[in-house]
């Protein structure tokens, strides 16, 4: 059979269509203003070329007239002049817009530091010691500065409805301003090819009112709840999961993989690949390469009951 329909990934959550033409941030609004002007100008030029071509073809196809008449060379002036003028106008809009969208960030403190990894996103909030992954909470109606870093190869931050993207380059600090207009969930994806699982490096921004955002920060500042009642908590340490993953308030302090302190409160797993539930967690721990081929999570060959305990434990970390 030619098409092997993806039954495995059917559990992936529904994602609404979000296009660059909807402006959900002030930056996107500025950019889309230029984009709209550009599409109008470009459409007009395309129309002129198409109409001229069609007219010339219609008029002179299999033309029987003996002496073809040459076009006056005065046309060349218009031919060069009009495009040059258009280009000058757009250069002005261009420079004006980029300075509006990305003003200087020197001496400004970033609100959130995002570090891209193969193939997930780490977000840390310097003001409150919160670290999370893949689902990034941001306040609305406030000018926030993101500091963008890369842990391994080049990645790229892109939420289409927020407008501009920005590469995340190893050994380099990049910055991005965002001013989100209203609360909601905004989806994005890594846009610089970054290896085997570039495809499954999705990103979600949960935009919240200032109050909800502060509550979320407060809740996520708390260490993981006392989970001694779960066998999975001990297994998580004894099976060496904590060497790569951090669960705040426990002995798990690894920083190689995503922080799992409040994993249970996230909606998706593996950078937007799967819905977050116990069954998916079990499948993932049991055979990571089957779910996300190439990912750095090793297969520990754990038995079913161990996997189940760890999955139940992680799911309880709200």
């Amino acid at each position, binding site marked *: 059979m030619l098409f092997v329909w993806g039954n495995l*990934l059917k559990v992936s959550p529904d*994602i609404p269509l979000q296009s660059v033409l909807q402006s959900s941030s002030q930056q996107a609004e500025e950019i889309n203003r230029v984009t709209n002007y550009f599409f109008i100008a470009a459409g007009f030029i395309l129309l002129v070329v198409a109409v001229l071509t069609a007219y010339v073809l219609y008029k002179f196809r299999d033309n029987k007239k003996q002496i073809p008449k*040459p076009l006056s060379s005065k046309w060349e002036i218009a031919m060069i002049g009009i495009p040059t003028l258009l*280009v000058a106008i757009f250069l002005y809009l261009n420079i004006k*817009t980029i300075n509006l969208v990305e003003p200087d960030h020197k001496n400004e403190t970033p609100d959130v530091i995002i570090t891209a990894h193969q193939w997930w996103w780490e977000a840390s909030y310097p003001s409150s010691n919160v670290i999370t992954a893949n689902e990034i909470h941001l306040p609305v109606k406030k000018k926030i500065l993101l500091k963008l870093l890369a842990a391994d190869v*080049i990645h790229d931050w892109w939420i289409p409805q927020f407008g501009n993207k920005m*590469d995340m380059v190893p050994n380099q600090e990049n910055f991005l301003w965002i001013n989100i207009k209203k609360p909601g969930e905004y989806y994005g994806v890594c846009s610089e*090819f970054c290896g085997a699982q570039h495809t499954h490096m999705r990103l979600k921004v949960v935009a919240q009112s200032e109050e909800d955002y502060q509550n979320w920060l407060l809740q996520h500042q708390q260490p993981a709840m006392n989970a001694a009642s779960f066998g999975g908590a001990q297994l998580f340490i004894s099976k060496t999961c904590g060497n790569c993953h951090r669960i705040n308030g426990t002995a798990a302090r690894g920083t190689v993989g995503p922080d799992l302190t409040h994993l249970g409160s996230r909606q998706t797993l593996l950078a937007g690949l799967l819905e977050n539930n116990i069954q998916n967690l079990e499948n993932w721990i049991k055979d990571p390469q089957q779910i996300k081929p190439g990912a750095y999570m090793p297969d520990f060959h754990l038995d079913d009951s161990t996997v189940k305990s760890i999955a139940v434990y992680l799911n309880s970390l709200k």
Partner: protein
Amino acid sequence: MKAILLDNIEHDLPVVHTDKKILYWLSTVDHKAIGKLYMLAALLFFIIGGIEALLMRTQLAVANNHFLPPDAYNQIFTMHGVTMIFFVMMPALLGLTVYLVPLMIGANEMAFPRLNAFSFWMTFFGGLLLYFSFAAGGAPNAGWFNYAPLNQNNYSNSPGINYYAMGLLLGGIGSVTTAINIIVTILKLRVKGMTLKRLPLFVWMALVNGFLIIAAMPSLNAALSMLLLDRLMEAHFFNTDAGGSALLWQHLFWMFGHPEVYILILPAFGIYSEVFQVFSQKKIFGYVFVAASTVAIGLLSFGVWVHHMFAAGLGNTVDSFFAASSMLIGVPTGVKIFNWIGTMYGGKIRLTTSMMFAVAFLIEFTIGGLSGIGFSIVPIDWQLTDSYFVVAHLHYVFVGGSLFSVFAALFYWFPKITGRQLNERSGKWFFWLFVIGFNLTFFLQHFLGLMGMPRRVYTYQDIPYYTLLNLLSSAGAYLMAAAAIVLMYNIYKTMKGEVMENKDPWNAFTLEWYADSPPGEKNFVDIPVVSSRRPFYDLKNPHNRDYD
């Protein structure tokens, strides 16, 4: 400059094994045979690159497809890009140049015939070396521009990227030596009376292109050598884990990469200029502008590379400078469209297959050129770069611009090269299937980009409209494949058919049609003194000659 004709050049050439087929092709230094070898090599790699494209479009036909595993998909999209750019478009256009330039300027050979053979074989072996990677443990898998540090051992540990570097180095040596050969041939071997102001525009484009290749390739070759040192001898140029620079690779690559775009479009402009003149039976509108603006493009093309890096965080000042230069280069490029429309105006237009591709190019290239101007506007680039919008844009330029020119050239010069004329009826089937398939595949990808689909993903989630648009896009790819089969059948049937009597089927203007079709081993037995831009037209219309 003094124009000389070295009519004794063939006396120095080694004896060619004319009786033994394989030995002949392996040992020939005849520019016509080498031109054909280039084009056959391009055809071979076109079939391979096309199959890779079909595999990709099959994988992407529906959401969450498992037809290809991620690593296979990543190798295939990388090989598709590298193959089509370096081993299809380059040899096809250089092959046409090597075949046609001596004929168009009234010379009997290239200036350096042995170097010509060397160039071809270097390029061809480069392609073979690249493909050997599949047998050696995996093809390159970091995209055709192969960004650091993904191209380093720690992130791509199969040997594929070593073969990428070595294959492109060989190809690069072949391109530089051909470029030197083309420049010297044009400057030194022109027939008496063919001043630079009377060069056919195809030759003008070839001349500028030669300088572009010589100036652009060293940057790529340096980058590839540094990459090999990194991968094989643990140098740290691009190894960011050891303090190397990721952006250094991008600068070096695009300092070559953007002129490369013009290297692939200038010969195409030359082809269209010849095709529009002959099939409108009229002189080009604005010869001086077309030639001079090409020189301007050649110079400007070295100052625009950072528009590939607007999202890399280089700062607003740098971005604004390169936005200005990128927009500026759009003007001489775009205005040529009006030169060609002006050429058709008032002419006697014959819509042969060749001319149909030239006319279709006007529209497709305008679409690709306009979206290109879009990418020179930094905020729009920030939004759409690395999305499917860019995939659509680059295919409108490479296919609608460069590849259509190869098809136009094929139908126009096929009688010259083989003495046989391709079937026009079948040619028109090919045209319509290909053009409809092309627009179906790539026009829709603009919308996918606007809907946030990034490029180089091996699958996508079931977001509204994604499957519909991707499925239609894949259907278009299969239409193009069907068209390619029609074309190959046309070529096969024509080659089995009769040699035509008329050696000048299109009533052409330039000297290559003054030679026999196909030309004899020595191109010209006698050659007239040139006194205008259309020497063959003058010979046919002695009472109505040109004076320019």
